[in-house]
């Protein structure tokens, strides 16, 4: 596109170079908390320079539309920044990303219309060779799917779209075929000189694909999806850069694409799941949904030590459910002391010992005996299960799988069929745990988000000791 090159003045090139450098440094700075703010500012400045540089582009003949765009965009951006709370950050990013994709896609369509469908003097079909057709196709495809995908992601985050994965049998196959057909269309447009109307078919297919691709992913995984869509919009931007021979777009797009992908992979690693599992995992007998693999419907309620002490104080029957967490924390002594204080008030305290609690047979017995808990207070599972319905408080001390209701019903779950303690039958369940991390079986626990359950986050030993102190006052 040597014609265009002449229309780009030197100042633009310098501004673009400065912008590119600022983008790269900016993203680098984003990777650490101390430099993140600075990185954000640098990238923003880079963007301003890029815009200034573009405004000097020789191809610009009229300014009205540009002014409208700048004002409208600026106002919307300002309103979003001021009024959307930080907690809505993922939704914000979803919108912004989607619109970026839409912009790329629209540029692609524009270029196709300008050069191929209604060519004019400044832009002829001859200027648009096979390479440009190819990248324009990619740009339209990536831009469109990023747009709709991000909008669906926004919907899921906002609760406008069901956050449950929406699957159907054979979905992954359909999606792959769809993608293959779209790539085939691009190839056809490049090599077989298909009618340019097929660009619009491609756009329509890509818009649908964005929806199809994101629907089967659970709401809790949206951050990963947005990072991926971010990567795709980056690729779309890079493709736009190739179509327009715009260096800074290519650079910015490539940065966006690679950082988006890396971010997705890092997030998946932190969740201890693979990227393919996140993107395609829900399809296939709905097992991932049933086991709640990494995804709980709802947030757990939390409770403070003082509130927990109050519930215990007012109870008549308390059942303690010890697990490996209690052993690892060495909390058994403090728990016994707490039980003593409660018993002095006439509250009945029993310990429900599940047959596989802990990491060895009899693990709980050994430790509780060590802490001098009377053998009579320990009750085995079959005997104590009917009593949970009459318990005022069930205090779960670092136990997880052994009270996970998934064992009763979720057929695909690794713990399915294992008899559990019916902790969820108690009037109030209090779970003392360090975090929401899964237990030995590696799955999430529906009990934690039940309405009668509250999480007391903290180190088992410290929490138990605090409970003793508070209850003794």
């Amino acid at each position, binding site marked *: 596109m040597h014609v265009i090159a002449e229309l780009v003045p030197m100042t633009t090139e310098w501004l673009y170079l400065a912008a590119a450098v600022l983008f790269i440094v900016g993203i680098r700075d984003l990777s650490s908390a101390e430099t993140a703010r600075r990185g954000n500012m640098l990238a923003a400045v880079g963007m301003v320079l890029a815009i200034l540089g573009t405004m000097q582009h020789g191809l610009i003949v009229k300014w009205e539309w540009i002014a409208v765009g700048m004002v409208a965009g600026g106002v919307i951006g300002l309103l979003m920044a001021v009024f959307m709370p930080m907690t809505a950050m993922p939704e914000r990013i979803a919108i912004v990303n989607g619109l970026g994709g839409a912009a790329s896609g629209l540029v692609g369509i524009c270029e196709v219309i300008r050069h191929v469908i209604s060519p004019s003097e400044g832009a002829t079909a001859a200027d648009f060779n096979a390479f440009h057709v190819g990248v324009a196709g990619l740009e339209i495809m990536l831009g469109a799917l990023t747009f709709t995908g991000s909008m669906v992601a926004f919907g899921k985050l906002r609760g406008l779209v069901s956050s449950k994965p929406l699957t159907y049998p054979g979905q992954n196959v359909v999606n792959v075929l769809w993608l293959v057909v779209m790539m085939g269309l691009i190839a056809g447009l490049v090599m077989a000189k298909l009618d340019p109307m097929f660009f619009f078919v491609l756009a329509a297919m890509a818009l649908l694909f964005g929806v199809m691709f994101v629907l089967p992913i659970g709401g809790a995984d949206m951050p990963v999806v947005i990072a991926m869509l971010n990567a795709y919009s980056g690729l779309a931007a890079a493709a736009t850069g190739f179509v327009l021979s715009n260096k800074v777009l290519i650079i910015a797009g490539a940065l966006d694409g690679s950082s988006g992908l890396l971010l997705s992979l890092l997030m998946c690693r932190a969740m201890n799941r693979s990227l393919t599992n996140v993107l395609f995992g829900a399809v296939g007998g709905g097992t991932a949904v049933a086991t709640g693999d990494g995804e709980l419907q709802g947030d757990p309620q939390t409770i403070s030590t003082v509130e927990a002490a109050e519930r215990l104080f007012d109870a008549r029957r308390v059942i303690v459910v010890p697990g490996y967490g209690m052993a690892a924390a060495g909390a058994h002594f403090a728990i016994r002391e707490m039980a003593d204080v409660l018993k002095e008030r006439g509250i009945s305290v029993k310990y429900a010992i599940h047959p596989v609690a802990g990491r*060895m047979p009899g*693990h709980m017995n*050994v*430790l509780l005996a060590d802490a001098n808990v009377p053998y009579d207070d320990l009750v085995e599972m079959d005997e104590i299960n009917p009593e949970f319905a009459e318990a005022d408080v069930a205090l779960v001390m670092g136990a997880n799988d052994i009270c996970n209701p998934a064992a009763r019903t979720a057929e695909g779950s690794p713990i399915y*069929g294992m008899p559990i303690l019916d902790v969820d039958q108690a009037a109030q369940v209090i779970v003392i745990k360090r975090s929401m991390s899964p237990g030995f079986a590696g799955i999430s626990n529906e009990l934690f988000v039940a309405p009668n359950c509250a999480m007391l986050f903290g180190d088992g030993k410290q929490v138990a000791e605090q409970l003793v102190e508070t209850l003794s006052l």
Partner: protein
Amino acid sequence: MKVVVPRELAAGETRVAATPRTVKRMDRAGLSVQVESGAGVGSGITDTEFRESGAEIVGDRAALFSGAEIVLSVNPPDAETVDQIPAGAVLVATLNPMIEKDLVLRLANQGVSAFSLDMVPRIARAQSMDVLSSMSTLSGYQAVLLASMAMPGIMPYLTTAAGTLHPAKVLVLGAGVAGLQAIATARRLGALVWGYDIRPVVKEQVESLGAEFLELIDTTTEAEDAGGYAREQSEDQAARQQQAMTAHLAQMDAVITTALIPGRPAPTLLTSEMVSAMKSGSVIVDLAAERGGNCELTRPGQNFTSDHGVTILGPLDIPRSVPAHASLMYANNVANFLLHVCRDGQIDVESDDEVAVGTLVTSGGRVVHERIIEVLEIPGN
């Protein structure tokens, strides 16, 4: 279906594959149980007690096996017994199939559908059927008692008018079910306990019992396989481990070794050189004696004292020494398994249930378990 519980013929065996409680459970499930006369004697269960729980007592072994549809056994049946099992019958026992090729082939030829409980998959649902876990629990506990009786002193820390008795130092090598139980028991007796395992994930488990995890080398390679078993180490790893451990061994009053690798001989953790670094009067209890032992000097089935005063115990079949609980646990494992695979009074040997598939060794005249076919190199069935 007719379930039979023969008397165990292995010399010295005290256990039995059913107890009055499990007989009642099987009876309630619609199975009719026949027990050979005297089968429970070793475990303190009389014929009367079995009869009262709903079993029929049969004196003649041949009559017992005739028409038997399910046979329950603790030990692998001997050749004669296998021949008495009717073709098409189901056998539930602990067969050690990765090593006992002749037995496996014999069972296959006899047309027996044999389930081997030591092959039960190690998944949450099957924990109640895991005989290895049950027996290891008992062995781990007993090992400490054996050590304490062989030691010249007692375990706990006592400050007395007649002097201060310092606590015994006990090292447990291998922190699986047996190792952890040994750690817990030694702690209960008042000893200072260290635990060691090549799987670093086990550190927290050892500490959760109040023992210290022995830090030797930084094992960064994958020491744990899919079933939670330890992988065999490379020679280099093993050599470095041995060197680092010797310094600690010199301080120990008792060392209990529990390291086993499924289907392979036990790994050597204590070379004779390492043993000679230990102090006189110290004790080694080698729980892996039946698979060759973790200690080079171990004499399986014997106890002896080395030239420089280290007593080395190589006990075999420890669960037999606590038959009441060993039978209780084993019988429960068997009943849990049987009632799991038995639906509407039938056992479906073709079932694709994970537990059944993982445990079934032979059926329909052939060996069917893929891993066993591989390990025993059985030609195309």
